[in-house]
C-alpha cells in the first residue's frame, strides 16, 4: 500500500480535532490489533479498526473518511472494553463520523448515515421516533423502495408498528433544542 503521510503539523491537528470531540488520544495506540481481533463487523469493513487508528495517527484524513469502516462500526464497544491502552475506540469512530458529516464527505453508498439523518429528522418533528416513516423514508432515500415490505403485515398485526406516529407534547422543544445545538457547534 502506497500513500504519503501528512506533515507533523497536520497530523497533530487531526489528532487534536478527534480529541476535542471525544476526549480520546489516538497517539496512545501501539497497534496490537486487539480491537480488530474482537470486532464483530471487521469482516464487512474495507480497513480494520486498528488500521483506521494508524491512518488517523499518520494524518491520512482522506483514507479514514472515505473508508467504509467508520460507517460499518456498530458501536458495540467491544474494542473499547478490550483496548490495553485504554482508548475508547468506539468514541473515536463517533468522532470520525461526526467530522466526516461536518466536512460533508460522507460516501454516497453508505446507508447508515442516511438512517441517522432520517431518524433525527423524525425526533425533530415528533419528539419521538416514528418507525413507519423512518422505514419508508429510508427505503426511498436508499433506492430500495420495497425493502422489508413483506414484514409490514405481520408487524401491524402484532402491534409492533403503528400507522399513527407517537408524539411527545413538547415536540417543538426538541426542534428548538436541536437548533441551539447547531448554533453552539457552528461557533
Amino acid at each position, binding site marked *: 500500500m502506497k500513500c504519503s503521510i501528512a506533515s507533523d503539523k497536520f497530523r497533530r491537528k487531526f489528532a487534536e480535532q478527534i480529541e476535542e*470531540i*471525544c476526549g480520546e488520544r489516538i497517539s496512545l495506540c501501539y497497534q496490537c490489533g486487539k480491537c480488530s481481533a474482537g470486532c464483530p463487523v471487521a469482516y464487512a469493513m474495507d480497513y480494520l479498526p486498528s488500521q483506521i487508528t494508524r491512518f488517523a495517527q499518520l494524518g491520512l484524513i482522506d483514507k479514514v473518511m472515505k473508508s467504509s469502516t467508520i460507517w460499518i462500526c456498530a*458501536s*458495540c*464497544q*467491544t474494542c473499547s472494553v478490550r483496548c490495553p491502552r485504554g482508548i475508547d475506540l468506539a468514541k473515536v469512530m463517533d468522532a470520525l463520523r461526526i467530522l466526516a458529516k461536518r466536512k460533508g464527505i460522507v460516501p454516497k453508498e453508505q446507508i447508515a448515515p442516511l438512517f441517522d439523518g432520517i431518524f433525527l429528522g423524525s*425526533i425533530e418533528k415528533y419528539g419521538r421516533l416514528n418507525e413507519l416513516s423512518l422505514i419508508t423514508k429510508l427505503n426511498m432515500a436508499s433506492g430500495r423502495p420495497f425493502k422489508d415490505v413483506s414484514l409490514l403485515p405481520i408487524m401491524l398485526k402484532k402491534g409492533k408498528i403503528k400507522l399513527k406516529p407517537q408524539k411527545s407534547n413538547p415536540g417543538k*422543544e*426538541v426542534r428548538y*433544542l436541536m437548533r441551539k445545538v447547531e448554533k453552539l457547534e457552528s461557533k
Partner: protein
Amino acid sequence: MMKVAYYPGCSLHSTAREYDISFQLVCRKLGIELQEIPHWVCCGSSPAHVTSHLLSIALPCKNLILAEEMGLDTVVAPCAACFNRLKIAKQEVAEDSKLKKEVQEVLGKPSAGKIEVKHPLQVIIEDVGLKKVEEMTRRKLQGLRVASYYGCLLVRPPSVINFDDPEDPQSMDNLVSALGGEALPWAFKTECCGASFSLSETDIVFELSGEILNEALEAGAECILVACPLCQSNLDLRQKGIEKRRGKKFNLPILYFTELLGLALGMSMRQLGLSRHIVNPSKLLERKLAVT
C-alpha cells in the same frame, strides 16, 4: 413501596410493547410504583452520538431533568440503548464542566446530576433481591433451558454502567436459576446482534444475529432471554430471514426477562402480551410450564 420514574423510550411504545406491558405488570406485583416521565422525548440513540456529541448528551439530559422535576431519585429505563445513553450523559456532564455549561445553555436549565439511572434488571436484583423474587414464585420454570443474551449496551462501557461483568455477565442467568430454570453457559452473551443496522445494513444483522441464534441452539437453548428491544427485534423479527439464508431451522422464541419473570410470578401469556412475538413461544411454554 418503592417509587421510581419510568422512561419507556420509543421502542417500548412501538416494536416492544410487550416489554412495556410485562415490565409494568411485574413491577406492580413486586411492589414497585412506576411513574412515567411526562412529555419524555427520544434519547437520540445511536444516530445522535454519531452525528453530534452535544446533541447526544443534551437529549438524555432533558429527560433526566424532567425525571428530577418529578421529585424522584431513580429513573428506570428498560431499553438497553436508552439506559446506556442516560447513564453516559449523566456521567459526562458530571465530569466535564465545559460540556455541563453547554448542555445548560441548550436546555435553559441546569442539567440533572442527582438522579440515579437504573435498568430494570438492576432494580430487580439489587433493590428487590432474588431471594424475595424466589419466594414470590408461583410457577417454577421447571428446567426450561434458557440462553441469556445481554448484548452490548447493557454492560458496556463498564466504567459508566458499573453493573455486571462486561464479558461474562451473570445477572439474567442468576434470575433464571432463581426461578427454577436452567441457565445455560454459552459464549455469545455479549456479542453484538447488529443493533441499529436492522434497517440500514440488514445483511450485517442477518450475519451477526444468525451466529447468536446458532450458538444458542448449539448450547441446547429452548429460548433466548433478552433485556433490550433492539436485540429482541433483530433476533425475533429477522429470525425467518436468517433461517432462509442459513438453510437451518432455529424456531427459538426470544423472550424479555420480564415476560419469563411474569410467568413465574403466576401471570398468563395473554396478560403479558406474549402473542406479540413473531416466533411463537406458546407451544414451548405450554409444554414446559403448563401455562396458557
